């Protein structure tokens, strides 16, 4: 009964979606207020129905209803409750349902809270959002129905892929989807503006909070995925340049560019057409990501299914929306009015610089990800493009971007003075140089990359706050005055500084973890000792344990640093009986910002084991940086001037002709 209810709710959502896809557009054309307003209610009710469908699926999983095919395929009655719930999106069908749930959530948010939007724009945005939603409802109902029943219900499920039975899976996909799908709203805004044929600074003001929200979730989602891969795959790497990771990085890069170009548009009414293009591209890349991950063209942990019908269907959606979006753009964009003027050396110029490097960096990732697929389709030759490619292309483009980051916020709008800005940054630049020199000396010239990277990271981290230091007169005025001014600063200024600081923190972590990591792979018997970078690990022996749906062999190690015991590490091998699969659970020990990483290899009958031990200095900074970035985004989002539905002041400002 419950699965049928879920299925029915999804069909109802589709019906509502179809109405919402057509009626508001007609309403906006005919200036019919009631038709336009219809969209707000359908958007909210649509979300309620998808929510109901999702809830129904959750209930099927929690009650282990194995008569439902996906539950049988991906769940097990012995699994802990949390994994029963996360199994809902640990498979193709369920993850697509999560995708439309979030899609309809964003629609409902615009419908419910977008009260200050002009009614015609709002109607069109919701209509476009519903086009996307409908195509995905159809996709689910025709090719990936999660509610399909089995003729005979088996007694036990086939268990979730053990590698996905992890808390990381509980958080990573929903966050990532909030980011991916969040860009659907900016896409809808862009398409609506193109249909309307009118775009102004106010448009950017409405779009920016949505972009910011999507960007925040994407940032944390990517970081989460990276941390999950780090501890679950047992390789100790935090980024593999795997096509699936790249699929999430590309929307992030373009989304970041969009975030910055929307500022120019909002403040200076310039870069309008470019911003529109970025809004279309950000979601297009999200769709391409979905296609790459969900169609089975790529081999990875994310590939649940290999059904050609699904691939073709997603490809059709892809072509429809990306092709349609870009065609509409090519047709309507030239008719839009030109924006404001600015000198190349100015805040606008700096933001263009940012956009140029971000989009080009994204382009190199795009080429690296899709070239192997294209080559195989054309010549049949199979190649793999891995980390070396991206280190040679993406990294050189990202370094200048980092270096330029402290300069940007210090530039004046319209016409800036780069020498003046450099003068204001001279102390920080000097600081970066000193750090670089000190690292170089202490490294004894072993690596050039580490001192350079750490010097650059210092420059960016401190430089991110120079704007604020000057504005609040820190060290120049009395402390209480500075504090007062600091509180009075717009929160978006703090947000910018924090986000820029965060990316430098991540960069610092990447430099530290990749240049100073030490590693050891050995086979050892009980009571034997291994040592690495000042740590000593004694292998105490193997312990057999039982979990709810697995048994595990854990190797117990006592860790000491400089002779002082600091703790115990227990890497293990879990054997999941249902799938006859083994997973490796690495043991992590956090020491400050660094981590010891111990992963178990072969366990032999004589009690000896092989292990892989890493010391990863500063590795935690990689993910902490992402959290700081997202916090910066949240701070910006909480800025009153940006908040959705910010009542009068925003509306007033909008009413003024820009310039």
């Amino acid at each position, binding site marked *: 009964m419950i699965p049928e209810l879920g299925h029915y709710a999804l069909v109802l959502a589709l019906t509502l979606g179809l109405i919402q896809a057509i009626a508001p557009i007609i309403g906006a054309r005919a200036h019919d207020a009631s038709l336009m307003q219809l969209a707000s209610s359908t958007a909210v009710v649509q979300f309620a129905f998808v929510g109901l469908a999702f809830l129904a699926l959750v209930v099927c999983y929690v009650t282990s209803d194995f008569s439902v095919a996906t539950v049988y395929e991906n769940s097990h009655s012995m699994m802990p409750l949390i994994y029963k719930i996360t199994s809902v999106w640990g498979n193709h069908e369920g993850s697509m349902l999560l995708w439309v749930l979030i899609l309809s959530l964003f629609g409902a948010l615009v419908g419910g809270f977008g009260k200050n939007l002009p009614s015609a724009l709002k109607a069109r945005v919701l209509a476009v959002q519903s086009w996307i939603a409908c195509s995905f409802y159809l996709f689910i109902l025709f090719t990936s129905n999660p509610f399909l029943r089995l003729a005979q219900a088996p007694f036990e499920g086939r268990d979730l892929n053990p590698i996905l039975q992890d808390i990381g899976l509980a958080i990573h996909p929903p966050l990532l989807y909030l980011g991916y799908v969040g860009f659907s709203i900016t896409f809808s805004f862009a398409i609506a503006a193109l249909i309307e044929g009118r775009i102004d600074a106010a448009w950017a003001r409405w779009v920016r909070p949505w972009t910011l929200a999507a960007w925040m979730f994407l940032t944390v989602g990517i970081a989460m995925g990276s941390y999950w891969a780090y501890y679950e795959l*047992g390789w100790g790497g935090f980024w593999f340049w795997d096509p699936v990771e790249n699929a999430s990085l590309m929307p992030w890069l373009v989304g970041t560019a969009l975030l910055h170009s929307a500022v120019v548009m909002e403040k200076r009414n310039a870069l309008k057409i470019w911003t529109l293009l970025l809004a279309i591209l950000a979601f297009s890349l999200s769709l391409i990501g979905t296609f790459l991950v969900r169609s089975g063209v790529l081999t990875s942990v994310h590939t649940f299914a*290999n*059904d050609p019908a699904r691939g073709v269907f997603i490809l059709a959606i892809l072509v429809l929306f990306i092709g349609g979006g870009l065609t509409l753009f090519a047709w309507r964009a030239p008719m839009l009015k030109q924006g404001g003027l600015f000198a190349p050396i100015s805040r606008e110029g700096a933001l263009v610089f940012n956009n140029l490097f971000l989009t080009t960096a994204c382009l*190199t990732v795009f080429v690296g990800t899709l070239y192997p697929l294209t080559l195989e389709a054309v010549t049949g030759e*199979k*190649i793999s493009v891995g980390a070396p*490619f991206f280190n*040679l292309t993406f990294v050189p*483009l990202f370094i200048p971007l980092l270096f330029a980051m402290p300069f940007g916020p210090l530039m004046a709008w319209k016409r800036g003075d780069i020498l003046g800005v450099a003068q204001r940054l001279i102390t920080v630049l000097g600081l970066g140089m000193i750090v670089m020199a000190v690292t170089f000396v202490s490294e004894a010239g072993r690596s050039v990359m580490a001192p350079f990277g750490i010097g650059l990271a210092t420059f960016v981290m401190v430089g991110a706050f120079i704007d604020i230091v000057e504005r609040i007169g820190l060290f120049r005025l009395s402390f209480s005055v500075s504090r007062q001014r600091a509180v009075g600063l717009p929160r978006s200024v703090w947000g910018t500084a924090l986000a820029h600081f965060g990316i430098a923190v991540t960069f610092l972590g990447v430099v530290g973890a990749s240049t100073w990591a030490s590693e050891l*792979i050995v086979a050892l018997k009980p009571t034997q000792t291994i040592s690495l970078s000042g740590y000593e690990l004694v292998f105490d022996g193997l312990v057999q344990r039982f979990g709810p749906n697995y048994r595990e062999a854990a190797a117990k190690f006592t860790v000491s640093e400089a002779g002082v015991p600091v703790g115990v590490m227990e890497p293990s091998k879990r054997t999941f009986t249902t799938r006859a699969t083994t997973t490796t659970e690495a043991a992590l020990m956090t020491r400050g910002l660094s981590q010891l990483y111990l992963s178990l290899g072969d366990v032999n009958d004589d009690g000896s084991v092989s292990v892989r031990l890493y010391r990863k200095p500063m590795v935690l900074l990689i993910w902490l940086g992402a959290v700081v970035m997202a916090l910066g985004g949240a701070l910006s989002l909480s800025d009153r001037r940006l908040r959705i539905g910010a009542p009068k002041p925003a509306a007033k400002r909008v009413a003024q002709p820009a310039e």
Partner: protein
Amino acid sequence: MTRKQRRLVLIGASLGVLAIAAALVLSALRDSILFFNSPTDVVEKHLAPGTRMRVGGLVKPGSVERGDNLLVRFAVTDGKTDIAVHYRGIVPDLFREGQGVVAEGKLEPSGMLAADTVLAKHDERYMPREVVDALKKSGRWQEGEAKSAGSAAK
């Protein structure tokens, strides 16, 4: 500066950055990509020793030997040809005889592959696509298997 000049500066800068990116991409594509071969390809193409590549196929049953110091020797087969591989380190959890595997490394003059990376699949139901293709090419892939792989995914 006039509007036109400003636009020229912008376009010039964009083209400059794009040109740099294109140069980076092209040089990286020349130096850092890996070709994927089936064992038969390796023999038929007469690849020069020292070539880095990926070889995919099944771990030949009965071929896995473990030596001292985490040395693992095994053969990758596509049913027609075998390639001997040696690797020092920890093999993935799903590395098993008769299962799909992808080994990455350098070809030695003896025709052995000195692997520095060994990849197995993530999921026991799922076969790496490269391996499926390699097996199809050698005619060892039964459509029945394809079907069961496909239906398992549904």
